């Protein structure tokens, strides 16, 4: 382990090798062909009903009034952003240990999507914050760590693009993703600590004593399913594109080799 030499991968069938076969682009195409229509149907069902519930059918909050409807965009986006980062961190671990190519493609495809949803969560959150607490932004632990998450997403997706060799970019990005995933709790905790030290603001996001009514849970659930299926569709499409691009690159490369 300590030497800079990695013995060449042997041809014998190790568990990793058989897994490797499962996660080949061909297998991925078969799975994505089945997953995408399901996700599309889910999206087409849940998005209109969710939006209808969120904007018309659910009642306004007794404290926040109509602005509470921002929650149905804000909360699912934030969940999705966090879930995607978790998934990227897991995929990064797989990239580094088992070297499955599809894991790298997944991380590459997912990080711009995650960045978009983090941005949506941040913007909708600050729009929600203005009428609720009277300010667009506070340096609260949750907001700060979402902002940092946004930066991690930007850095991660920049990293995947920053190298001539895609593989190298994916490996570097996966190290960053794992370090970032370990760092996020530390960041959140340090900001919390800093806050208790200085200006204990009396803002709590969702009052733990208040329970959410079922009429609010339904649109929240619908919107969450809608956003998750949207992310699934986009990420699978981006992964397919990445595989095609790689094929195209290798064709081009072979052409230049044949000429010489």
């Amino acid at each position, binding site marked *: 382990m300590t030497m*800079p*030499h990695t013995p*060449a991968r*042997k*041809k014998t069938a190790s568990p990793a090798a058989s897994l490797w076969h499962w996660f080949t682009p061909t297998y991925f195409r078969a799975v994505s062909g089945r997953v995408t229509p399901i996700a599309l149907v889910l999206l087409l069902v849940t998005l209109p009903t969710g939006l209808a519930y969120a904007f018309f059918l659910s009642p306004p909050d007794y404290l926040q009034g109509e602005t509470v409807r921002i929650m149905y965009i804000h909360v699912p986006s934030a969940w999705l952003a966090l879930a995607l980062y978790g998934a990227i961190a897991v995929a990064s671990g797989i990239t580094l240990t088992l070297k499955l190519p599809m894991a790298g493609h997944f991380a590459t495809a997912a990080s711009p999507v995650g960045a978009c949803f983090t941005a949506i969560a941040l913007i909708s959150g600050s729009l929600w914050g203005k009428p609720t607490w009277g300010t667009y932004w506070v340096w609260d632990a949750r907001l700060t760590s979402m902002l940092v998450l946004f930066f991690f997403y930007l850095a991660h997706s920049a990293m995947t693009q920053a190298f001539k060799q895609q593989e190298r970019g994916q490996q570097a990005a996966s190290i960053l993703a794992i370090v970032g995933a370990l760092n996020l709790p530390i960041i959140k905790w340090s900001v919390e600590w800093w806050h208790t030290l200085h200006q204990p603001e009396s803002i709590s996001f969702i009052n733990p004593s208040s329970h959410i009514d079922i009429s609010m849970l339904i649109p929240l659930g619908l919107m969450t399913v809608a956003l998750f299926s949207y992310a699934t569709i986009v990420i699978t499409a981006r992964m397919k594109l990445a595989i095609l691009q*790689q094929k195209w690159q*290798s064709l081009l490369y072979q052409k230049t080799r044949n000429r010489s």
Partner: protein
Amino acid sequence: MKKKTTPLYTHRYAVRNLTCVRGDTTLFHDISFDSVGHTCLHITGSNGSGKSSLLKILAGLSSAHSGTLCWCDTQEAPCAHHVLYVGHELALNSALTPYDNIVFWAQARQCPSTPDVIRSALTAFDVAHLEAVPCALLSAGQKKRTSLAKLLIDEDAPLWLLDEPYANLDSQGQKTLQGIIENAQKKGAIIILARHENAPERALPCDQTVTL
């Protein structure tokens, strides 16, 4: 006077079914060869055929997509300090003088680094008079000579990997290098060098050729 006998045990490097993939492209496929001490192996191929990649894999600097490397009795690439590798990148720091570059190289390889050793290595390649000039000011050929002087510091290394060693070298330098390589071969090293088909390195001793 005792007759010099070749030692019974020599180094062996067995390479089996080496495949190198960059991205989705296979650079080379199923390369196998055996190499033993006292021999020189030439890897030939056109530009972009993966000669440098193969040398890096043989050095253990990068890993192959599949295939095995067996150095002597092990099932893996040789220990790092057995490998003497001179690639296209000359590994000379431009702020340091040739002398300093070689001294630090000798220290890193844990070889003798006395001024005499360093000076004689630089003299062999005719760059001793430049020993106090920062490498940034040297010409391409002078840099190449300085880089090759590293070979003389660790002459006993059992595996020499040279990537187009004659590049940028004049005929005098080529002659010197040829002498050094033949000497190392006599001492029992495995020499593997990469060249294109009609490169001047053809003049070097060649026991075996692998074409990519």
